[in-house]
């Protein structure tokens, strides 16, 4: 017998950006909210920027706003075509929450800005921490590597960056320096250990002393995005002030420090708003009549059955385990066994010929189809469950890697799903 009193108004499955935005939307509206996920969400290995729309139809976009009408017109099942109106609110929810923790996210839908990557290339994003929003045009960049940190090669960045700038019509000069300090001589040096070092003023003092002689006429000092974890804004401001130049952070390989900063800020806000977060268990949604009756949390020994008022499914796409490819090439949705839509082009040919296919892979468009209220649709096109709403990477119709649209989709659909779930 399932318990008959729902302890939560909203159960969110998935702890990535879409789940967290949905959680914020539900909890801030006063709903008793449980967020549960199989592991931590992808923020910890994304770059801490909010990409909304960088490219459409092979064209680089000066602003997301410029491309959104075309998306809605050309691809009716694209998440922006369905929930684009809530994009602003979703972005604002993340921006306000991060800002309250001292992590500003600058930018607007009216402009894309170029952020530099650890490979020295430049890519468009919409919202980014101030430390990633350097003005590259005309910049004299000193790229600073840290000895022993293998995930960031200053020489590589400095040799690629000018050409990457030139392609976009930007004039960038760059040279590299690698700093060696005794405090870097650790057995294991990842971005996390570095971020904790940057949190300490003593480390920053040593770094400044080592940099002063090499600064030359640099106007921008580019560092791997490891400038502080708990005291990141203070660490970056301190360095910029002491050096008298712009400090730019370049997102690196995971563990992603800026992504972790953002996740910790949002989850702390969720806990303050009274939401409960549970990390580590797979979840199944159990239908009961025309609704989801309860979720079965796969705890060791016996499942925990939590009765469901409303449920937001934000379990992610193929890379996150929300979708799975079967051996026969068909796809399944792993939590509620929802039907998965696959574009015709993908049938029999899920992927293209090379890993970084410029036009994307057909399978990227696959996912769960929803209506404007984010309710998953059955094969015949009508909503399957009255109390189930889906958001984020799980949704069909977008090639996030090619469009650079993953985070914006999470914000728009996560927010819309939460609004519908608390309505």
């Amino acid at each position, binding site marked *: *017998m399932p*318990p*008959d*009193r729902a*302890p939560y108004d909203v159960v969110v499955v998935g702890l990535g950006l879409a789940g967290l935005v949905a959680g914020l939307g539900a909890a801030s509206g006063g709903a008793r909210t*449980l967020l549960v*996920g*199989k*592991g*931590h*969400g*992808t923020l*910890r*290995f994304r770059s801490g920027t909010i990409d909304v729309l960088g490219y459409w139809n092979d064209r680089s976009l000066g602003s997301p706003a410029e491309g959104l009408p075309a998306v809605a017109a050309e691809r009716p099942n694209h998440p922006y075509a369905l929930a684009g109106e809530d994009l602003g609110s979703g972005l604002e929810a993340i921006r306000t929450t991060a800002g309250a923790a001292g992590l500003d996210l600058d930018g607007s839908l009216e402009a894309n800005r170029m952020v530099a990557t650890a490979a020295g290339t430049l890519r468009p994003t919409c919202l980014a921490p101030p430390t990633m929003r350097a003005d590259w045009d005309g910049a004299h960049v000193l790229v600073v590597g840290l000895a022993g940190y293998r995930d960031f090669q200053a020489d590589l960045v400095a040799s690629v960056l000018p050409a990457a700038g030139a392609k976009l019509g930007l004039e960038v000069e760059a040279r590299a320096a690698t700093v060696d300090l005794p405090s870097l001589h*650790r*057995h*294991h040096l*990842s971005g*996390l*250990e570095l971020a*904790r070092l940057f949190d300490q003023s003593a480390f920053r003092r040593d770094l400044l002393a080592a940099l002063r002689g090499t600064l030359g006429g640099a106007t921008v000092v580019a560092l791997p995005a490891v400038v502080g974890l708990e005291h990141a804004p203070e660490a970056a401001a301190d360095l910029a002030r002491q050096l008298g130049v712009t400090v730019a952070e370049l997102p690196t390989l*995971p*563990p992603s420090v800026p992504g*972790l900063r953002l996740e910790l800020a949002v989850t*702390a806000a969720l*806990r303050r708003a009274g939401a*409960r977060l*549970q*990390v*580590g*268990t*797979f979840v199944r949604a159990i239908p009961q009549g025309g609704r989801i009756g309860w979720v079965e*949390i*796969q*705890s*060791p*020994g*016996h499942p*925990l059955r939590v*009765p469901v008022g409303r449920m937001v499914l934000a379990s992610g796409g193929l890379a*996150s*385990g929300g979708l799975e490819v079967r*051996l*026969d090439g068909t796809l399944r949705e792993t939590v509620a066994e929802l039907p998965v839509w696959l574009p015709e082009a993908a049938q029999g040919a899920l992927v293209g010929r090379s890993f970084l296919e410029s036009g994307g892979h057909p399978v990227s468009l696959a996912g769960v189809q929803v209506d404007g209220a984010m309710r998953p649709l059955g094969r015949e096109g009508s909503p399957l469950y009255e109390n189930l709403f889906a958001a984020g990477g799980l949704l069909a119709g977008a090639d996030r890697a090619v469009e650079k649209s993953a985070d914006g989709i999470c914000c728009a659909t996560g927010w819309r799903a939460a609004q519908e779930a608390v309505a």
Partner: protein
Amino acid sequence: MSEPILFNVDEVALSADRCIKCNVCNTVCPVLPVTDLFPGPKYCGPQAQRFRSGHPVETWVDYCSGCGACSRACPSGVRVAELNARARARMFEQRGIPLKNRLLSRSETLGRMGSKAAPLANFGLNFGPGRVVVERILGVPREAPLPSFSQGSFRRRFRRIPQPERPNLRVGYFCGCTTNYYEPRVGEAAVRVLTRAGIGVELPEQHCCGLPFISNGDFKGARKLAEANLKALLPVIRSGKRVVATSTSCSLTLKHEYREVLGLYGPEWEELAAGVYDAFELLRELAWQGELELDATLTQRVLYHGPCQLRSHGFGFPAADLLGTLGGIELAESGVECCGSAGTYGFKGDKREIAFRVGQPLAARAREHRAEVVACDSETCRWHIQQLTGLPARHPIELLDEAWSQAERTGD
């Protein structure tokens, strides 16, 4: 559609291949930030696992505290902590188990001996030179928080607690060695709370769950205890009763470690795992069904710390869910993965300092909340937390017992 292909493989060992090197485990490991002696769960777990077949096992695996934060954080389902526990046992198999580990595992034997001679044993443990002897033999640093032996076991006190006349439900209580020999008050509180909720409680035959053996690398000893517990507890479960525990590390061992760490697979082990519940998990279920009203007040500022081993149960924080509904309580969650103690880890020689450093965020959180008491479901954690924070650390069931006793006294 064709029949699925079934591979006869060990799911835990195979899980290492699911690692996509996303590093999420390294972002949650509480040991990694405080010492260079441990390379972090990614290297120690799935990466080192590839080199472990037939080769000597590296020694740094012993710095894994076994808190399980990595396994919980992994979005790809890699059982990092379980791989580490197995590797540690293999390391000791090859190098021999140190005497201090052998002694420290035997919580049941130590408890039985100690509680028989409680005044003398406690004098020895509280007395400076006595602790020097303990440090030399057990490898437990003289500053580490040791509990006192109780005079008379919980089993003897249990019989004096009245049972409900017409219980709605009957359960078998797995009290664990700590409750039996060191802290019978926790067991007494548990039985009072359960009986007041209309649950009939019996105390079946039981043995140490074996966790101290597992964490000290003695799988042979652990398996013997597991078999003994299976024999003792299955009849309880087969008679339709749940086995209910208050120590979340004991219950996790029965539910999870027997299978995933000791490799004891099979239907009877699944039956055991399915029948074991945490006391608050059961109480919360009753509350969700509308069969239990807490209806009491506890005017205290409480920091609730869900211990690492409770987190691996994957049932959330049932104690906090219930305590939070008490009137007058100012309850905050620690939001911290691990206090540092992680079972007997924080009691062993050089790991004492690591455990202390791991615990600092928890201590800061207690200060920030201006807590008067820390509630925590695991015994070794409570002893460690008392020392970390200078605050009393109590089992949440003691707090609920206190609130209900107060309500009874004032005739609410």
